[in-house]
Each structure stands twice: as C-alpha cells, then as structure tokens.
C-alpha cells in the first residue's frame, strides 16, 4: 500500500499521541461546555447520560478496530494508540455511570443498587463497566511484565465480552421504544470487528 509508509511516519510523530489524546477528550469537553452553558436541550441530564454512553460505545469500536486496521492497512504504528483508546472507552464508561448515578439517582446508594438489580439493561451495562475495570488497572507496562504477555493478553480478551455486553445494554435500552436503527449500526461494526478476528483464527488455527 503506497500510503502506508507516510501514515506510519505520521503516527510515529512525537505529537501524534498528544493529538489523539486531545481529540479523544474533545467530546467530553463539548458535553461539559454544553452542561455549563445550558445548551444541551430540554433534558440536559438525559443528554449527558446518552452522550457519554454513545462515546463509550464509539471508543470500544475504535479500540477493537486497531488490530484489524493495523493488519489490513499495513500500519503497525496504530498499535501505539490501542491503550489510549481503551482507557478512553473506560473513562467514558465511568463518566456515563457517574452521570446516571448522580443526575438520575442523586448518588443515593439505596436507590442505585436496587435499580441496577431490577433493570436488566442497567445490570448488563454495569457488568460491562466492571469487566473493563481489571483491564484499565492492568494497562500499564509493568502489569504486562508481571502477568506475562500470554496471561495479560488472555485477560484483555475480555474486551470482546465488554463490547457484546455494551451492545446488549444499548439494545435493551432501545427495545423499550422499539427503536433499533442506531443499535444496528453499532452491532454491525462490532460484528465486523469480532468477525474479522474469528475469521483470522479459523484461517490460521496454529496461531495462539
């Protein structure tokens, strides 16, 4: 691929990571700005909860796209951004949960716990977030060395489960209003990204 070396050089630029970091933070900044200036519409709490949820899903898709794109486009430097994107998925997931717990539930544990237990879609979403926690906690280099690459990789495959749970969370949330158009878009993306991995695994069964 002719463009690959140029892209590769760009991705290895010392400013590439800070730039991606700022880009990834931009949606949070926009939501925060909207909340402070009261420009999030009639129901700002709902806009914040939905907005942060959308961005969690988007970052999950982005982080799952790193390996397929890296191999398909021949730009190994993409791997530099995988941890950053994964941590942003976790960050938006945490903010999403905090928005729900604070704006919808008034940070009242006595309300939150039964609400999670009673509502399947919240239960599944909480499970996805909790499953992301060990991945975020073992995202630094020393954790990889301590765990050993094989065990670390096995643990971090949990991100596939996180993506499926997050999708189910979104699907069940929208099922109440019978509105699956957006869910279908994310489901198709996740299906392609996980399907690509499955296809590779089946084609080359020898590789771990």
């Amino acid at each position, binding site marked *: 691929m002719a463009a690959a070396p140029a892209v590769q050089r760009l991705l290895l630029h010392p400013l590439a990571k800070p730039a991606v970091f700022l880009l990834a933070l931009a949606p949070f900044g926009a939501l925060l700005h909207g*909340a402070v200036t*009261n420009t999030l*519409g*009639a*129901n*700002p*709490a*709902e806009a*914040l909860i939905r907005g942060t949820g959308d961005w969690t899903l988007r970052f999950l898709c982005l982080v799952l796209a790193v390996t397929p794109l890296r191999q398909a486009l021949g730009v190994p430097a993409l791997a530099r951004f995988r941890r950053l994107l994964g941590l942003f998925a976790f960050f938006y997931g945490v903010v999403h949960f905090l928005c729900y717990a*604070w*704006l*919808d539930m*008034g940070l009242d544990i006595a309300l939150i716990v039964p*609400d999670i237990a*009673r*509502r399947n*879609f919240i239960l599944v979403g909480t499970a996805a977030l909790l499953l992301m926690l060990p991945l975020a906690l073992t995202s630094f280099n020393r954790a990889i060395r301590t765990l050993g690459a094989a065990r670390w990789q096995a643990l971090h495959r949990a991100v596939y489960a996180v993506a499926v749970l997050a999708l189910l969370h979104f699907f*069940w*949330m929208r*099922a*109440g*209003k*019978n*509105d699956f*158009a957006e869910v279908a878009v994310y489901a198709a993306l996740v299906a392609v990204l996980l399907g690509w991995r499955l296809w590779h695994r089946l084609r080359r069964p020898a590789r771990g």
Partner: protein
Amino acid sequence: MHLIPDRGFQHPVPSEITPRDLALNRRQWLAAAGATAVALPAAAQTARPGRLAPLPGARSSVPGASTVEKLTAYADASTYNNFYEFGTDKADPARNAHTLKTRPWTVAVEGAVAKPGRFDIDTLLKLAPMEERIYRLRCVEGWSMVIPWVGWSLSELIRRVEPTGNAKFVQFVTLADRAQMPGLRSSVLDWPYVEALRLDEAMHPLTLLAFGMYGEVLPNQNGAPLRLVVPWKYGFKSGKSLVAIRFVERQPKTSWERAAPEEYGFYSNVNPRVDHPRWTQATERRIGEDGGLFAKRRPTLMFNGYEPQVGQLYAGMDLKKFF
C-alpha cells in the same frame, strides 16, 4: 392577666353598622370581579411566545384543569417531543415537522354514532368555546412538563355525534402520510398511530381536544392542528394530528400495545406503583426544574395528581393487571 378587660359583647354604635344593601353590594362586586376573570383571555394568564397565530382560551371551570405549578418554557415544550412520525429522537419533530400541512384538514368522526361526519378544522375550532387548561404532562419515559393547552372537552364533540349503545371505546387515529412525515419510513411502529380510550374516559371533562398551547395554535411538532390531551395517562395516550375519531364496541389494540404488549397496556394510567420493565415510574424529572442538572427528581403522583377527578373511573379495578 388580660390587658383588655373583658366587658362581654360590645354593641357597635349604630352609625358603624354597614347598611344591608351595601353589604349585599359587596357580593355583587365579587361576582363581577369573578366574571371578569372568567372572561379574560388566556393571554392574561400565559405570556404568548409570539411564534404562531394567537388562540386565546378562557379560564376553565373544570375541576383540576388549572394547576398553579410553574409552566414549562415554551422552548422546551416545543423542542423536546415524542412524535415518531417525524423521527425517533426527541429533537427530530421540531426539526422535521415543518413539512406537515395543517390546512385543509378534516377529521372523520365515524363508527357507532347516530350522526357521523367529516368535520373541517375550522368548524371544530368554533364548535365549543376555547378554554385554557394548565395540565401536568407525564411521559412514560420518566419526565414531565406543565403545559397550558387551549381547547375544549372532547365530550362536547361526543355529545353532538350521539354515540349509540354499541359505542364502548373511542379510537384516535393520527395522520400517516409518507409525503409529509419522514418518520413513516422506519418500522418502529405500525402506521397509522392508533390510540384509544374507554367511552367514559373519553367523556371525562378533563379529556381535552387541544388546538393550541401557550395562547397560540399548536406548533406542528406538538400535534397540530388538533390533538388529544389526557392528563392522567402517560403522554403517548394523547394522539397528535388526529384525522379520525372512531366509536367502536370492542377494545381496540393500540399501536404501542401491538409493538410491545408486555410494556404498554391499554390503560397506561400514570401509576408510580407499576414500573415499566425498563425504568421506574416512581419518580419523574420535571423539565426546567429549578436547580437545573442537579435538581432532584419528583415523586410521581397517582393518576398524575388527577386522582380526585378520575379515580372513580377505575373503582374496583386491579391497576397492576390493567396497566
């Protein structure tokens, strides 16, 4: 110890007694003041946003029809709407409903009635005196507003068309025109959108056929040119942009019942004790509540606070079963 010694009943000096005719006059004066208040147009109560044609309504004398809670801002009430015919996002209707043509408009009133007919919108506007009704609106999604509607009790129309003994339910059909409504391309619901009430619910004086809000005609996204407003039921029971009102014998299947029968019942009365499977109905977020983002949710009231007026309609019914 009393500072003023009790001397028993003190007879007033005759000159201080108000003459009888003057005392009676006071009542006349109060009655006149009351009449003035009744005759005052809606504009006196609700500041018009100045966006659309004025449609004033007199203060309603129907019990429960004029809550004194803070009104929802017009900007919020007209930009945060569920009107799936114009898109499923709540910002979609305000963006897309400009394609709706509200003139000419007729409503077919048909079925089990002695005098069926097609009513032109201009005939309906003059059918009964317009009243302003300030109602709470509780959406099944857990948010609420306070909206000053303009219209008249649906019973005014029902009486004129004379339902027969077979009329047990009233069905409300919303316009379904692909040329005007981009949302019809999605298969979220079976179109047209159909809602229904029991005849006694439809006859209740609080059940409103609304033509306006905030002293002006309805914005398209809020269901122009006429819609139903049933304040003690979740908002989706109040069909918008109606083209037919049908009197039937058997309980009709509503659009939401057909889409998700375990989640949306026929009655759909606001009830904090019966949760929707996906969210609690015990509390609600009042749109525009003081305190903004961090305002506490309000407890939801039985029948949306209209229990004194409508509770007797459901006497003896298991409201968990008939949700």
